[in-house]
């Protein structure tokens, strides 16, 4: 029975996806019930699993796909960190999306692919072997495309094409890396680290780079980030999916798996590839912020901010010192909560006030207090102001940088904080201190849009306020690192 749990968790997203595709546009109720129901059941299963895994249990299932090809699903603490994040945010995004899309066309396609994306993300999290990981990773690539192209106008199609232009070559590279490595070591399971001693270091370095390119594209590491800001033309729930629920998180999660479960920290240190990766992540952090500063569209600014913030995770795991790992893992959740809040709010400004550019934010705080409060919380959290979650990540990454004897990390964090302030504070000033245009129409009478934003903002505050408790993202990240990586 317990062996079937991973499959059940996957089915909670797959079944709604499969049925939704065949529903007519008018079947609002059934479609919404299916998707919300799936998300709620999934949430319940995950809570049960969190309790079990905290107690030391782990679950594993093998499904033979073809001779010699086994889909291995495994639930460990790290997998659960990612699954709980994506499942919680999936529920919020579904509620938001139902209201956001209202009676717009092609909803069955939208929700079908949406659930499929979440299914793929869950699969990525639960994969127990490299090949299972690859299968789900590619499923995610493909099922994201129709979502980016959802509006079917020229800009959306261009963005979607851009996405594939980045994604497909990188997938190929990932496949090459996997084949190359597995041809030398045999199938790689995440449970027991592979014996890499038979491969010469030069090849290993190249393979590592191939892996980073293959998975790092989804994490929008510079220079593989171009697709992400372009994809902001998609509807707000898709942005939430790209930036918080699934895609960039899958990339960051992939980097974690590659470093810790494919190569192993010691090997990464031996090969000397950790520091260049950390340097690349640092460059991404700064460059992303600088580019964010130049954007005049809200969503585009947020997109570059994601480019920058996701690399905090990469930076943490690449530094590989105890605190840095914990900080990076916790930031996986923290960034998700804060960024989804911001995108929800950006969507509300667009829908309820017709505001897309930064100038339009003037005076909206009075008219849309809930939305603007949530937006402010998300923005201040990104800057790293306590008690919102972001500051916890920063403290851990900073100490972790010193532990890894990389004091330059502190300069990166400091610069990033100032840059974040530089591109978020003016927005807050406009929201709360400018006067609204007299003819502006703006309200927030849309509880299903505002509710998820409030919930996400609250979660971001609680994650920081109660960081030291066992059930916080930080507490769980500590458990992961103690259990799996830092014996």
């Amino acid at each position, binding site marked *: 029975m317990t062996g079937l749990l991973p499959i059940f968790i996957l089915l909670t997203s797959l079944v709604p996806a499969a049925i939704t595709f065949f529903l007519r546009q008018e079947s609002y109720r059934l479609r919404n019930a299916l998707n919300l129901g799936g998300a709620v059941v999934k949430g319940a299963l995950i809570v049960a699993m969190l309790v079990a895994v905290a107690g030391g249990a782990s679950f594993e299932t093998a499904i033979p796909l073809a001779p010699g090809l086994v889909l291995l699903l495994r639930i460990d603490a790290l997998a659960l960190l990612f699954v709980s994040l994506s499942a919680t945010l999936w529920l919020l995004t579904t509620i938001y999306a139902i209201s956001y899309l209202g009676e717009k066309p092609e909803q069955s396609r939208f929700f079908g692919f949406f659930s499929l994306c979440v299914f793929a993300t869950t699969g990525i999290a639960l994969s127990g072997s490299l090949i299972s990981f690859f299968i789900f990773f590619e499923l995610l690539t493909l099922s994201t495309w129709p979502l980016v192209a959802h509006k079917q106008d020229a800009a959306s199609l261009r963005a979607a094409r851009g996405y594939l*232009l*980045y994604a497909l070559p990188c997938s190929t590279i990932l496949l090459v890396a996997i084949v190359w490595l597995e041809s030398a070591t045999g199938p790689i399971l995440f449970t027991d680290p592979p014996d890499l001693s038979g491969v010469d270091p030069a090849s290993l370095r190249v393979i590592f780079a191939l892996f980073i390119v293959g998975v790092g594209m989804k994490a929008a590491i510079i220079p593989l980030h171009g697709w992400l800001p372009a994809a902001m033309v998609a509807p707000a729930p898709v942005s939430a999916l790209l930036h918080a629920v699934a895609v960039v998180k899958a990339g960051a999660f992939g980097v974690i798996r590659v470093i810790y479960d494919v190569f192993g920290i010691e090997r990464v240190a031996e090969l000397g590839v950790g520091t*260049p990766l950390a340097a690349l992540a640092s460059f991404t952090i700064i460059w992303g912020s*600088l580019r964010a500063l130049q954007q005049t569209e809200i969503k585009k600014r947020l997109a570059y901010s994601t480019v920058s913030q996701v690399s905090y995770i990469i930076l943490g795991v690449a530094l590989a010192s105890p605190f840095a790992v914990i900080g990076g893992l916790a930031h996986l959740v923290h960034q998700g909560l804060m960024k989804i809040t911001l995108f929800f709010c950006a969507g509300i400004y667009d829908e309820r006030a017709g505001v897309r550019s930064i100038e339009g934010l003037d005076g909206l705080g009075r008219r849309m207090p809930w939305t603007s409060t949530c937006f402010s919380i998300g923005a201040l959290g990104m800057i790293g102001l*306590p008690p919102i979650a972001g*500051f916890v990540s920063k403290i851990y990454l900073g100490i972790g940088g*010193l532990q890894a004897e990389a004091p330059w990390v502190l300069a990166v964090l400091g610069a990033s904080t100032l840059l974040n302030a530089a591109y978020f504070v003016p927005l807050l000033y406009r929201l709360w201190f400018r006067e609204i245009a007299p003819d502006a129409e703006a309200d927030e009478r849309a509880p299903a849009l505002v509710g998820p934003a409030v919930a996400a903002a609250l979660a971001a505050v609680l994650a920081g306020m109660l960081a030291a408790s066992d059930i916080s993202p930080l507490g769980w990240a500590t458990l992961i690192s103690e259990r799996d990586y830092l014996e």
Partner: protein
Amino acid sequence: MTPWIGPFLPLAALIWPLLLGALTAMPPLRPVAVRLLPLAPVPALWLALAGGQGVTAAPDLLLGVTLELDDARRLLLGMTAALWLVAALAAQPMTGRPHTAIFSGFWCLVLAGNLGVFLALDVVTFYVSFAAVSLASWFLIVHERTEKALHAGRVYIVIALAGEVALLVGLIIGADAAQSMAVGEIRAALGAPGSSAVGIALLVLGFGIKAGLVPLHVWLPLAHPAAPVPGSAVLSGAIVKAGLFGLVLFVPEGALGPVLMPLGLVGAFGAALWGLTQANPKAVLAYSTISQMGLMIMLVGAGGAARETVPFFALHHGLAKGALFLLVGVMMAASGRGRRLLCLALAAAVSASVAGLPLTGGALAKAAVKQGLADWSALALSLSSVATSLILIWFLARLWQMQGRDEALWGARFALPAALGVLAVTGPWLLWSAWSGHGPDYLFKADTLIDALWPVAIALPPAAAVLRWRLPQLPPGDLLLILGAWRGRAVRIPAPLSLRADADGALRAARRNSARLEGILIRWRLTGVLIPLLVLLMFALLP
């Protein structure tokens, strides 16, 4: 989950103002939000009077909150709570004016942060509190939303954010060096031989900004006068002490003495003299604050017994400066000659105490710290009283120039600074023996009396001169002003030659080119293939 361990009162002292702050956001309470403010510091005041009993820990909050009171913390906590209480009472006439709900909410947040700084035993609680007191006080500064206030707010927020970053990085370095989050251990680790000088430097930067350390003080003379009177009182009396206490807590004994002492003295004398060029009495008081804070920073730099008695000095200054700022408000509400004279008399009495006239609270504070000072620095302290006397006499003159309109309840308004003034004088008397180790008779010795008297006496002739022949009157902002004048000149150079225009152009070009580069990257069909190959090449070239 354990909510907390140990006495609850310290935790309550912090949570209570936050709760009240949240209440002020409730629509039915918004019009009367100011009415709630006097309640906010009550638990903290009670705690300071009752004294602490052991460590309070809330292990699940933040990264594990720990709070404790020792003598120094208790003194500062009490002073802060009392000042915030009186200032909140003085804020009552603001009820019903625009934006007061926002003002009240952030008032409570700043208060909680200010108290937290004095209670925190671990570095994260300290940092969170400091961030609250530092950043939320922006709302006190810009409250009036005049062009002047917004300008002060802009200058303030930029400097405060930079200070936050310096502080965060400094504290991280300290926490790593100590392998601990405990404040005491971090100070010890920073003081250990071979420890990082960068860490200490960043901490001094972060705290110095808040404490008005020259040359990081530039925001202070703009911001303190910009706030409404009760806001100025807490900014100048209590909030600057957060920075001072940070220096006391984290800068290791003996470290940076050669830096802090001269800078402190430059502030002590320079600010007092520059204050003579100010017309606005609140700006004069702001410069006096920089001057007094300079003295306290010098004491921290001197180390030893002088440093230990800094809280005693801060107690007096906080209460007295609060009283003086409130008196500016009271003067604005008075038009009759009798009331104005009463105001002036009280201001003169409090000023005399700050200048250290014999047997006043200020004299006691100075006598207590002097014991720990070397001869030359004790002399510097005495000489600084000359400067203090000068600037405060100037303040009294400026105060007298103010024209007010009669407002209701003048007696009650007047009673508030009077109460603070009484506290500023009696407080040091009550605590004298505990903080100086001497009996009261020490204060009546001829030496002590003369020591306190001569600086004030010396100050009288130059004060008369300044009142007779005025110095040129300048807007507040000393170094910023000088910088601004310099920049103004730079612009007048033909545009292509000017450094500034060059920098702007380069920045614009860099911006344009980086955007173009990315545009190409996104549009370019081959990007997807070529860039991964480039990255690959980069890694392959690694040793």
